[in-house]
């Protein structure tokens, strides 16, 4: 791993261009009826780094996240992944292009076993085609390879003993780890984590943080949406702050936390004034 900081000389401003962007978004707008949920002029995500997307409730983070994973379509604007346009691309195609996401409400497939969950995450299994499915020789070998990779990941996430259990019988934290492990089956270039710390007990937090840093060390780019500032400060290389649909600040964690605009967005403009009806603005 290079010692050169990829974020050196990157200006601490919204929409700052990155040295080696893996995601670039331009003029993205998403409206719901009369409400503009997302209005981002320019956005770039640095490759091989951990980027955090934060902001107060209703800032549009989740909507923007969905737009960047194909689970929602913007009214205006476009974005690209690895130089390829992802405009109008379905979520499945985005995943196949190398960008995998997890969900805030963990979607472990409960009535399937852990190992089957993992196998499902793999790409390029010809047996998933209906015609090839009839001829096991066409897919047996790939299944063996997939199972091997799954075992490796399960060991890493300490879920190997549970591999034949139904995912529904795992604890909440274990299901979160399973979802993360499953996302890695297809060897993605980028992993998008939707509030990975949501509902996670403190004992598991450290473990999760370590796993995410390990991802970066393996060359996977990570973007996560979070409310947990502790996590943001601990592991993110770069922080992007959204409020009211727009990006209001970018920078390394410490400088962003001290940014007065960011503080205002979180605490409200009049955080030190009397909020009774008579007070003037």
């Amino acid at each position, binding site marked *: 791993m290079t010692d050169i900081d990829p974020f050196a000389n990157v200006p601490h401003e919204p929409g700052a261009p990155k040295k080696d962007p893996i995601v670039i978004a331009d003029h993205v707008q998403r409206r719901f009826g009369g409400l503009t949920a997302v209005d981002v002029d320019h956005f770039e995500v640095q490759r091989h780094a951990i980027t955090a997307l934060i902001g107060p409730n209703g800032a549009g983070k989740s909507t923007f996240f969905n737009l960047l994973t194909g689970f929602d379509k913007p009214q205006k604007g476009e974005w690209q992944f690895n130089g390829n346009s992802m405009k109008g691309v379905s979520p499945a195609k985005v995943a196949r292009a190398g960008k995998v*996401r997890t969900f805030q409400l963990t979607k472990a497939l409960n009535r399937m076993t852990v190992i089957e969950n993992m196998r499902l995450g793999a790409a390029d299994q010809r*047996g998933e085609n209906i015609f090839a*499915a009839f001829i096991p020789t066409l897919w047996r070998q790939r299944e063996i390879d997939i199972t091997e990779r799954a075992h490796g990941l399960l060991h890493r996430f300490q879920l190997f003993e549970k591999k034949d259990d139904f995912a529904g*019988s795992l604890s909440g934290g274990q299901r979160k780890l399973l979802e993360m492990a499953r996302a890695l089956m297809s060897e993605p270039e980028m992993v998008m984590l939707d509030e990975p710390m949501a509902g996670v007990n403190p004992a598991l937090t450290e473990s999760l943080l370590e796993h995410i840093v390990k991802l970066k060390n393996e060359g996977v780019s990570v973007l996560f949406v979070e409310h947990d500032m502790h996590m943001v400060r601990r592991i993110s290389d770069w922080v992007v702050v959204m409020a009211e649909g727009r990006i209001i600040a970018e920078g390394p964690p410490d400088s962003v936390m001290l940014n007065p605009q960011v503080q205002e967005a979180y605490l409200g403009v009049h955080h030190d004034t009397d909020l009774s009806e008579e007070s003037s603005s």
Partner: protein
Amino acid sequence: MGDLLIDVAREAFTPTTAAFALAAVGLNFHFGLTGLLNMGQAGFMLLGMYGYAITVREGGPIWLAIIVALVVAMVFGVILGWPTLKLRGDYLAIVTIAAAEMVRYLGRSQNFNSLTGASTGIRGNEFKGSFEALSPFPDRMVDVGPFALHGTRSTSWWLVVVGWALVAIFTLIFWRLSKSPWGRVLKGIREDEDAVRSLGKNVYSYKMQALVIGGAVGAVSGVIWALGASVQPDSMGRPTTFWVWTLLLLGGAATIFGPVLGSILFWCSLVLIKGLAAMWIPDTVLSQQQLQPFSLLLVGVTLMLLVIFRPQGVLGDKRELAFND
């Protein structure tokens, strides 16, 4: 009583039982594997029997008739699925019921009399001949142990053999496919479509494949049923679909042998209940005419109890419950 037991035992292998087992295998692709709430399986069955009977009546050979039956059902599946597979659960149920009823209305309509025979349907002698001609059994009543069936005509030993052979074939196909990676994707879709999308699979395409395959199997079941009875649109109405659901849930949805076991249990129980009721309940309380609705009333109650207390049916695994809450 002895006669009743023979009747019950015979019911276990009649062509009707085989046909409904097949229909349930088709539904197992839809609901058991993929979680699709197809409430229109009777529509697929009716289209299958129309396709077969009309082709034969117009002079076509059997192999062509089978192809027509399959193609008609598959096209119906595609037309049905193309706009509707994006609908959630109970909406899809209502649309599939409506579509199946439309097929029935169109089939029984006076306007199509020359094609479908309207409400009378297509009589056996117009389409059964070529199939019966293939029978290796003698052209008379044949006794096998206590069971007497005709060798070739209508509900015959020949049809019994063919029907159950098809059940075996399609059960095998279901088994192979459900154990394959293709089946795994469908099971994932049954759990959570978005999760499967996030793993790079085209959910819509897989659902369509399940719908079409299950519908094609339904069409075959319709052909078998018609070969033992006749092509009559009113016998393929909503109750028929509901019986298929009942016997699939009874045997165990998403299991390999659930459809077969469910069909056998369903039909044997019906005969048994009717028989016992006829024997034990005096005619003044329950008349001959009332036996049929009485036993079907119990079918309805059974469905309710099954779904509430044992949704996994006889063979199902409680953890792998086919219902997604």
